[in-house]
C-alpha cells in the first residue's frame, strides 16, 4: 500500500508542476496591462514604469515564473494588485467558505442521488425508473445559476423565508454551522449547487446497480434462495465503491465549479474571489486561486484513487 501511495504521489507531482506552469503562463495570454486597474485615469507613462517596477512586473517572464514558483512553494503568492493583501490569506479564507458549501452539498447530493439511483436501478423500465431518470437528466441539464436567481426571487424577495445573499448578519467570520439562523444562509446555495451532483450520482448509481444485478454472483445468490431484499442489499453494497468514487470527484469539481452559484448568492468563496479577480484583472489573485483550487482537485483525485484501491483490490493495478 505504501508503494502504491508513493507511486501515485510520484505521478501527481509532475502534474502539479505542470498545473503551476499553466496557471502562470495563462495570465500572460491576457491582453491588456494588469497594472491599469489600480491606476487613476490620467497617469503618465513614467509613473506606470515606476509602479511596474515597484510591483515586480518588469523582470523577464521565466525569471518571474521561477521566483513565483519558489515563493508559491513557501505559501507566498505575492500581494493582490487591488487590495495589496497577501494573496494566500485571501485565497485560503475564501477556500474555507467554498469548502463549507461543498461539504454540505456533496453529502446531500450523495444521499439523494444514491437513493434515487438505487430505486431506479432496482426497477429498470418502470415508471419509477423513468421518473427518477428524468429527474436526474433535469439535474444535469439545468443551468444552476438560473435556478438560483429564480429561487432568490421566490424564497427571499416574495416569501421572505430565506436570506437572498451573503453569509449571515455578521459576515463569514462570525458564521457558525451550529446556529440555525446562519444555516438559513446555506439553504439556497447548497440546494442549487447540489443539482448537478444529484443528477450525476443518481445516473452512476443506476448504471452500477443495473450492471451488478446482471452479474453472475447475483444470479447465484438468487438461486440460493435469498430474499429479494437481501439480494438488493448485496447489490447496493457492491455498487457503493463505484458511486463513492464518483462522489469524490464531484467534490473536486464543485470546489472549482461553484463560481456561478457564488456569484449569484454573493457567497464569499473562492469562486467569487476568482470572478472578482478576473473582472479586476488582479493577476496574482487569479494565479493563486486557480493554482490552489486545481491542487485541491489533484489531491481529491489522489485520495479518491487511493481509497478506492484500499476498498476494492481489483483496482490496485499498476
Amino acid at each position: 500500500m505504501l508503494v502504491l501511495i508513493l507511486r501515485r504521489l510520484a505521478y501527481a507531482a509532475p502534474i502539479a508542476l505542470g498545473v503551476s506552469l499553466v496557471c502562470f503562463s495563462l495570465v500572460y495570454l491576457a491582453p491588456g496591462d494588469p497594472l491599469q486597474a489600480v491606476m487613476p485615469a490620467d497617469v503618465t507613462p513614467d509613473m506606470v514604469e515606476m509602479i511596474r517596477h515597484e510591483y515586480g512586473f518588469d523582470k523577464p517572464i521565466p525569471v518571474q515564473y521561477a521566483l513565483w514558483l519558489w515563493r508559491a512553494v513557501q505559501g507566498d503568492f505575492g500581494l493582490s494588485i487591488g487590495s495589496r493583501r497577501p494573496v494566500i490569506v485571501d485565497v485560503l479564507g475564501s477556500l474555507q467558505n467554498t469548502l463549507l458549501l461543498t461539504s454540505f452539498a456533496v453529502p446531500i447530493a450523495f444521499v439523494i442521488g444514491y437513493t434515487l439511483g438505487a430505486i431506479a436501478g432496482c426497477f429498470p423500465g418502470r415508471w419509477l425508473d423513468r421518473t427518477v431518470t428524468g429527474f436526474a437528466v433535469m439535474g444535469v441539464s439545468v443551468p444552476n445559476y438560473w435556478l438560483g436567481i429564480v429561487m432568490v426571487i421566490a424564497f427571499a424577495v416574495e416569501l421572505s423565508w430565506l436570506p437572498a445573499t451573503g453569509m449571515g448578519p455578521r459576515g463569514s467570520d462570525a458564521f457558525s454551522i451550529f446556529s440555525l439562523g446562519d444555516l438559513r444562509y446555506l439553504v439556497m446555495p447548497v440546494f442549487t449547487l447540489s443539482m448537478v451532483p444529484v443528477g450525476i450520482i443518481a445516473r452512476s448509481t443506476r448504471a452500477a446497480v443495473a450492471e451488478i444485478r446482471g452479474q453472475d454472483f447475483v444470479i447465484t445468490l438468487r438461486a440460493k434462495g435469498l430474499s429479494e431484499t437481501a439480494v438488493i442489499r448485496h447489490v447496493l453494497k457492491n455498487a457503493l465503491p463505484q458511486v463513492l468514487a464518483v462522489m469524490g470527484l464531484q467534490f473536486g469539481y464543485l470546489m472549482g465549479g461553484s463560481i456561478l452559484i457564488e456569484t449569484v448568492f454573493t457567497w464569499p468563496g473562492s469562486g467569487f474571489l476568482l470572478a472578482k479577480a478576473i473582472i479586476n484583472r488582479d493577476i496574482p489573485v487569479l494565479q493563486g486561486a486557480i493554482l490552489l483550487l486545481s491542487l485541491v482537485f489533484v489531491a481529491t483525485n489522489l485520495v479518491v484513487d487511493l481509497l478506492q484501491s484500499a476498498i476494492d483490490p481489483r483496482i490496485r493495478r499498476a
Partner: protein
Amino acid sequence: MAHTLAVTTPTDLEPDVLPANVVRGYWQSVAYRLRHDPVTLFFGMVILLIILAAIFAPWIAPYDPYKESVIARLKPFGWRGHLIGTDELGRDLLTRIIYGGRISLFMGLAPVAVATVVGGALGILAGFGGRRVNTVIMRTMDVFYAFPSVLLAVAISGAMGGGIANGMIALSMVFTPALCRISETATAQVRNLDFIEAARASGAGTFTILRFHVLGNVLGPIFIYASSLVSVSILLASGLSFLGLGVKPPEPDWGLMLSTLRQSIYVNPWICAMPGAAIFITSICFNLVSDGIRAAMDVRM
C-alpha cells in the same frame, strides 16, 4: 418479482432483442435500434427543429432581432403579436431566442467538434506512436485534466478577455484531454488486436492501418462521449456569457440574455425565465439523445 418482470427501457435494448432473422452490420444495427427508440427519436426531432430554426432564423423569426423600441419594453406574452413578449429593449423575445440558438448551439457543438478532432487525433497518435510520444502527449493532457472543467474554462477565457472566439478556445481546451484519453485507450486496445497484425503482415502501411482499422474502431467510443459533452458545453458557454466572459451584446445569446434580463425580473418574471428555459430544454434534449445513442451503440463508458 422485479427481476423476472424486468422490461428493458427503450434506451437499454439488448442486442438479442433484435430479430434473429435479420443479419446486419454494426452501424445498421445501431440505426435499427435508434429507429425503434421513441424517446431518442422524439428528442432528436426537437434538436433538429431547434437547429433548423437557428439556421433559417432570418426566414422564420417574426421580427428583426436588433430592432428595439423604448415604448415596447418588457411586454407580456402575446402583446401586439409578440408571441412570448419583448425584452428589456423592446425587441421581440421569440426572435431573439431563435437567433440566440445560433450562437448557443454553435458554442455547444463547435468546441466539442474541435476537441473531438484534436483530442481524437492526439489520442490515436499517442496510442500508435512510440512510448516517448505517448508520454509527452498523455502527461500534457493529464495536466489539463487536473483542472476542474468550469475552473479551466473560466480561467482561460477570463485571462484572454472573453468573447466568442476565446470562449470557444477555452471550451475546446476543456474537452480535449478527456477525448484524447478515450481515444488513446481505444487505440491501445485495438493496436494489438489480431486484425491489425494481419493487416501489417499483409503489407499495409501505418497510414492505411490508421485510416481503415484504427479509426473505425476508435470513432465509436469517441462519438458517444462527445455527444454527451454537447449539453455540458452549452451550459458552460452560457455560464461564461452570464459571467460576462462570453458573447458581447447586442448579439443574441441565451446565457447573455439571461444575464441582461436579470434586473427586469421585477417587471415581468416570465419574460426573464424564457432564455433559461431555452438553455434547459436544449440541454435536456442533447442529454437524452446522447443516452439513446450510447444505448444503441451498446458501449459502456
